[in-house]
């Protein structure tokens, strides 16, 4: 027996520990401090970078404390677990009590309750008890909320309440945090995050996961048909875009141009435009024409390479400008004809006939720059994300309920006084926003006293 009692008290103590506000405040403060540390020490940087900032001893210490990848360290996760356990225990501990209060409200105003309430007023009224009770019932309905009436050995009790939901706001908020954590766990266990760099014209099917050596087989492949960058007039990038196709069983099943902030989704896998880069050297296309209009030739030039134009000379491209003095894209070429000095001149894409001005046996036109890019995509599947959004929505709703509603209660007790008049006692309480309720109570007081039988 003694053992059982001892065990019970130990359980009690453990339970008290996990339901205590002290634990909550402790966890919140530690989460905050740890988070600050994580922003001061840059996370997940290469070792060389840390070597520039810290001494070897400091690095060893920080590594032991997992401070370089702190948000994924065992002790940070432990804090989150403690936080969750604390939230669950507080809810389990307090919610049933609140449900009981809400389901069985104290509908009669006895003396003990009267003493415990902050808002009480009393006055006397002439009239018949039952009739007055009816009058006050109507008046209370108008001024506050429809009351329940109970008669108890010659005493009438009127009870009305408002904003009961306010009692549950805090639990909705706390549960929402647990739901968000659940969503995060589901996403981490069942989802993946990866990346893919796809050269224009190529496709991928296996995606390397971020921060790991694993690959995920999508079960379909994604092809980058084209990638391009648009610019503002001042040359700053305006938009990166990739024209993507989803290919499944050899068939194109979906095609979409994605941009930053406009991803593609297929079978729960999302592709986000994240970066881009040059894939190999760019080439330029130049056409060679006869001034009389006949005989055309198209040649492709790579940087640093000459191209032979048969019966004319050697040509190479030496410079490219996306906008040459407001005239649009331009190419600087060097032409070497046998027996003459090399000549250097600009070709303008917008004016293909421009080179006729040399009045030579051939004229050249700049047909365009063929840049080959790879598009950098973030790839993610997160089956938990909608659970997270559900939690977020509940959190906002819970906070609003918790702080903007208050559970307000109002009692009226009518009893026959010694002098034959009816004694009226008005009492009220609120669980929040006392100042606002004070004003409301004053107004109700006035209304109730002015009631005419």
């Amino acid at each position, binding site marked *: 027996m003694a053992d059982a009692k001892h065990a019970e008290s130990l359980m009690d103590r453990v339970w008290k520990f996990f339901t205590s506000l002290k634990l909550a405040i402790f966890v*919140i403060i530690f989460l905050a401090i740890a988070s600050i540390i*994580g922003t001061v020490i840059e996370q997940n940087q290469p070792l060389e970078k840390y070597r520039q900032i810290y001494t070897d001893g400091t690095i060893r210490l920080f590594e032991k404390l997992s401070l370089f990848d702190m948000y994924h360290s065992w002790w940070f996760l432990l804090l989150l677990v403690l936080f969750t356990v604390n939230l669950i225990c507080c809810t389990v501990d307090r919610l049933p009590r609140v449900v009981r209060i809400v389901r069985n409200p104290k509908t009669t105003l006895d003396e003990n309750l009267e003493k415990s309430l902050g808002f009480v007023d009393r006055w006397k009224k002439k009239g018949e008890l039952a009739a007055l009770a009816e009058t006050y019932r109507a008046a209370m309905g108008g001024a506050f909320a429809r009351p329940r009436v109970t008669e108890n050995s010659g005493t009438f009790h009127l009870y009305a309440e408002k904003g009961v939901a306010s009692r549950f706001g805090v639990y909705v908020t706390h549960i929402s945090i647990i739901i968000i954590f659940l969503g995060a766990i589901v996403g981490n266990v069942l989802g993946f995050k990866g990346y893919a760099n796809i050269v224009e014209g190529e496709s991928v099917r296996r995606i390397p996961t971020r921060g790991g050596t694993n690959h995920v087989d999508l079960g379909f492949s994604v092809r980058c048909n084209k990638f391009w960058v648009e610019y503002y007039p001042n040359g*700053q990038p305006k938009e990166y875009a990739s024209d993507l196709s989803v290919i499944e069983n050899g068939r194109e099943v979906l095609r979409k141009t994605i941009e930053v902030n406009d991803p593609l989704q297929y079978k729960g896998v999302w592709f986000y435009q994240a970066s881009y880069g040059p894939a190999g050297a760019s080439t330029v296309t130049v056409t060679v024409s006869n001034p009389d209009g006949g005989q055309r030739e198209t040649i492709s030039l790579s940087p640093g390479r000459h191209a032979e134009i048969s019966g004319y000379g050697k040509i190479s491209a030496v410079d490219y400008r996306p906008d040459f003095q407001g005239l649009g894209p331009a190419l600087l070429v060097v032409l070497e004809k046998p027996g003459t000095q090399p000549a250097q001149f600009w070709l303008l894409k917008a004016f293909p006939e421009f080179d006729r001005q040399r009045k030579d046996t051939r004229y050249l036109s700049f047909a365009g720059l063929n840049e080959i890019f790879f598009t950098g995509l*973030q790839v993610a599947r997160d089956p938990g994300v909608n659970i997270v959004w559900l939690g977020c929505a509940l*959190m906002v709703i819970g906070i609003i309920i918790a702080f903007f509603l208050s559970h307000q209660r109002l009692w009226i007790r009518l009893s026959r006084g010694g002098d034959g008049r009816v004694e009226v006692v008005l009492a009220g309480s609120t669980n929040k926003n006392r100042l606002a309720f004070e004003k409301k109570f004053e107004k109700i007081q006035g209304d109730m006293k002015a009631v005419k039988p």
Partner: protein
Amino acid sequence: MLNVRLFDLTTLLFGVASVNYVAALYGKKETIARIGTWVCIAAAIVSTAAIGVRWAESYKMGIGRIPVTNLYESLVFFAWSVNLFYLAVEWKYKSRTFGAFVMPIAFGTMLFALTNESSIQPLVPALQSYWLHAHVITCFVGYAGFAVSAGVAVMFLMKAKREERKVTGGVVGRFPSTKVLDDLVYKAIVWGFPFLTAGIITGAAWANYAWGTYWSWDPKETWSLIVWLVYAAFLHARVTRGWHGRRAAILSIIGFLATIFCYLGVNLVLSGLHSYGGA
């Protein structure tokens, strides 16, 4: 640009309003404070017009977007929110003494904005999203609430100190009662907190839509969480432990310091994803 000149005028008006409120406090002249209120209303009109003009001018430049995308714009938007939040408080609580403690925050913000690049720059691709509107507006309304709370917390501490020494009259004699001040410290946070929460959530939703991760422990995200935790602690201490008065006021000021660091410090000291980082 017209919008910048309007913002300069706004700065001047905030300055005049601040001086009026402080002067009214020390000179004990309600008329001066009343002028302050009208100056604040004028500033609200001018700054709203300035934001509208800036918005329109960005469209004329072919880079149309809401003007809340760099440090200059976010500062003026913050000052705009503080001013409106303040006017609402003044109207609700029928006291102009708050002005001496809140309007200087708006004025100082505008002065700081003046030292920053004010031209309209095109938007980098990452910021071109409708989430931008919801994210920035919710965050800054939240910040404005915290600013008002901290300003009132300072008033509370001044008044409480005088009352402790049983000194009546003086500047603090014109303040509302400590009970009202204490309540307002709490109320402003109660308004700010859901907006900050919504701000963090819209930020997460946006990040998820742009990059496929709703939370990546980026310094800005992390600091917004820290601020959120500080105010969550404030609310718990108040509701379940009855922290009123001095301790609550100090916590409100700590919360606002964390907010300022989250807003400015992170960008100026730490590195991260937010647009006014290098600007």
